[in-house]
């Protein structure tokens, strides 16, 4: 068995590739739904309704999509430079913690400066916290050749333990009656709601502009060129005069910063405080989203909506039919693998000898 390149990538590839991936994914999850003893068709209908079927559903999906967009962008920019940042989860928590530290201490009001200025401080602190978490592994990679996959992964666990430590101690919310959560953010720093009576907040707009900003950066600036060049070929970019170490640093700042922002925006927009379970794997889902989007910043927006929809839909469907919510993770992981296979098959053909 081996693969060979197709002469002409087939025209219909853009249609049948994602379509076949979708069909395959739905088939696999259908098997799992059957295992749970639920009717497949009805389950999928409930999933769709739960994701997009009403204003409330749509708003929930949008809300869930916001941190995913940011971690998706974080993964996209890092992977484009072949810096495999698997640590977005930890960077998100670091950013959330920093946000609350800047905006929530001192008796719940943060530092004594105007809220709008404090807001900017908070955002910057969160981005810096996330960036610093990635800086270590990035430096280890560029100077010592240590593989960043393992270091960023392990840092996730370390970060979560650190947050737990903080929540037990200095940043504990005294009024939470023993429940591990942090002090709350100054209410003036919270993001306003976009649609009244829903949880959709203006972080959505922020994510949107960040996606556009990243796209512009990657395609129209010298830094974007450097990032794409280093990701494509480090030897050739060194020859062309690109500074690999500086570019790696920038990528770490951008990627870690975006993930840190995800944490801050979740706190400022949705929860107002940090808990240990505020992220159900957003960091890892961000990687899936980035791959589904082909590492394209604008594609990340679309993919985030899809993944968020699956997650939200599964939640509501689970309450009705009793299929465990993990079906969402199954669907997301299967779609990643099947999209990768499908898009690869548009370029190559498998030959059995």
């Amino acid at each position, binding site marked *: 068995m081996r693969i060979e390149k197709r002469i002409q990538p087939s025209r219909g590839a853009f249609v049948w590739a994602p379509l076949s991936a979708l069909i395959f994914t739905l088939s696999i999850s259908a098997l799992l739904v059957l295992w749970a003893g639920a009717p497949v068709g009805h389950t999928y209908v409930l999933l769709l309704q739960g994701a997009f079927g009403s204003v409330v559903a749509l708003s929930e999906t949008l809300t869930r999509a916001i941190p995913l967009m940011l971690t998706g962008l974080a993964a996209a920019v890092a992977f484009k430079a072949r810096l495999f940042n698997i640590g977005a989860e930890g960077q998100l928590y670091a950013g959330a913690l920093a946000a609350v530290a800047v905006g929530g201490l001192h008796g719940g009001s943060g530092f004594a400066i105007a809220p709008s200025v404090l807001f900017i401080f908070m955002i910057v602190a969160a981005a810096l916290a996330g960036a610093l978490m990635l800086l270590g592994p990035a430096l280890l990679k560029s100077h010592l050749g240590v593989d960043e996959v393992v270091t960023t992964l392990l840092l996730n666990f370390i970060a979560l333990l650190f947050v737990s430590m903080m929540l*037990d101690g200095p940043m504990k919310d005294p009024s939470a009656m023993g429940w591990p959560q942090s002090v709350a953010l100054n209410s003036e720093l919270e993001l306003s709601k976009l649609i009244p009576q829903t949880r959709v907040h203006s972080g959505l707009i922020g994510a949107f502009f960040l996606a556009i900003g990243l796209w512009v950066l990657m395609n129209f600036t010298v830094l974007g060129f450097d990032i794409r060049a280093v990701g494509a070929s480090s030897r050739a970019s060194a020859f062309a005069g690109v500074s690999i170490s500086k570019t790696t640093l920038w990528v770490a700042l951008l990627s870690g910063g975006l993930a840190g922002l995800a944490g801050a925006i979740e706190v400022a927009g949705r929860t107002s405080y940090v808990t240990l379970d505020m992220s159900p794997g957003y960091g890892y889902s961000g990687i899936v989203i980035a791959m589904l989007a082909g590492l394209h910043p604008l594609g990340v927006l679309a993919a985030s909506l899809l993944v968020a929809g699956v997650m939200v839909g599964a939640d509501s469907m689970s309450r009705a039919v009793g299929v465990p919510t993990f079906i969402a*993770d199954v669907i997301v992981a299967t779609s990643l693998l099947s999209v990768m296979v499908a898009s690869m098959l548009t370029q190559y053909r498998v030959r059995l000898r």
Partner: protein
Amino acid sequence: MSALLDIMANAAFWVAVLRIATPLIFGTLGVLLCERAGVLNLGIEGMMVAGAFSGWLAVYWGAPLWLGVLTAAAVGMFLGLFHAFFTVVLALSQHVCGLGITLLATAVSYYGYRVTFPKVSTPPTVTPFTAMDGLGIPILDQQTPLTLLALLLVPILGYVLYRTPVGLAVRMVGENPQAAEGQGVSVLAVRTGAIMVGSALMGVAGSFLTLSAFNAFFFNMVNGRGWICIALVVFASWRPGKALLGALLFAFFDALQLRLQQTGGAVLPYQLYLMLPYVLSIVALVLVARKASYPQALMKPYRKGER
């Protein structure tokens, strides 16, 4: 310092060390085999979860313990077949495919657990392996047979890798696949086989957790042990003997931090102790970074016959 010596003088401490090391030995050997053949297997975390769950479920449903272990191995092997298909046949990104498999295997395992036990507050249990009392060797006779298996696997894998034709083929495929192909060895077959056997070992590592160390399946049970194995393989320079050493060293520190938590009282937050294993893994990676001699074809996709 004397507290440290006290801890080390206690035989129960070393029993714990061996027990903690066992899944790491299995897992590290599994990763070692895959990487020697040139393939990074980031699916280990998911394979361990899947092995833990499937092995345990088989026993819960009435199978004898060893059949449970075999089931875990088979599940790991099955997942390994997928990983091999994606990365060896289709030459997709080894990083992303491994992560995808981890996410998928974990999700399916958790899903399966919830489906089988929808409304339980305490996890159901099985009767795990018992200690091998009759063995007569101190510390070892407090371990279960799986630990003995792990220890035996080290020299066996070393022998296979360095003294048999198939071991040479595995090493060659990880150093220069074109050379292997030119000598009539199918890179596809050897890599797939290595990945499948390695993944089976990862599944067994997971089953140790549910059938020996504990007797039930919890969420977040594996808790990053898979990733630690990946770090340990680099630390071990891809040699089975050093892999055993690395696993034992790591388990030493892990058992130590557990004991220190108990004896040290509330001096330091317990989270700092829990962080120790992960921090140590990173330190280990940094220490060997300069000297690491990777199998030369590791992570490079091999496309047969491509111009």
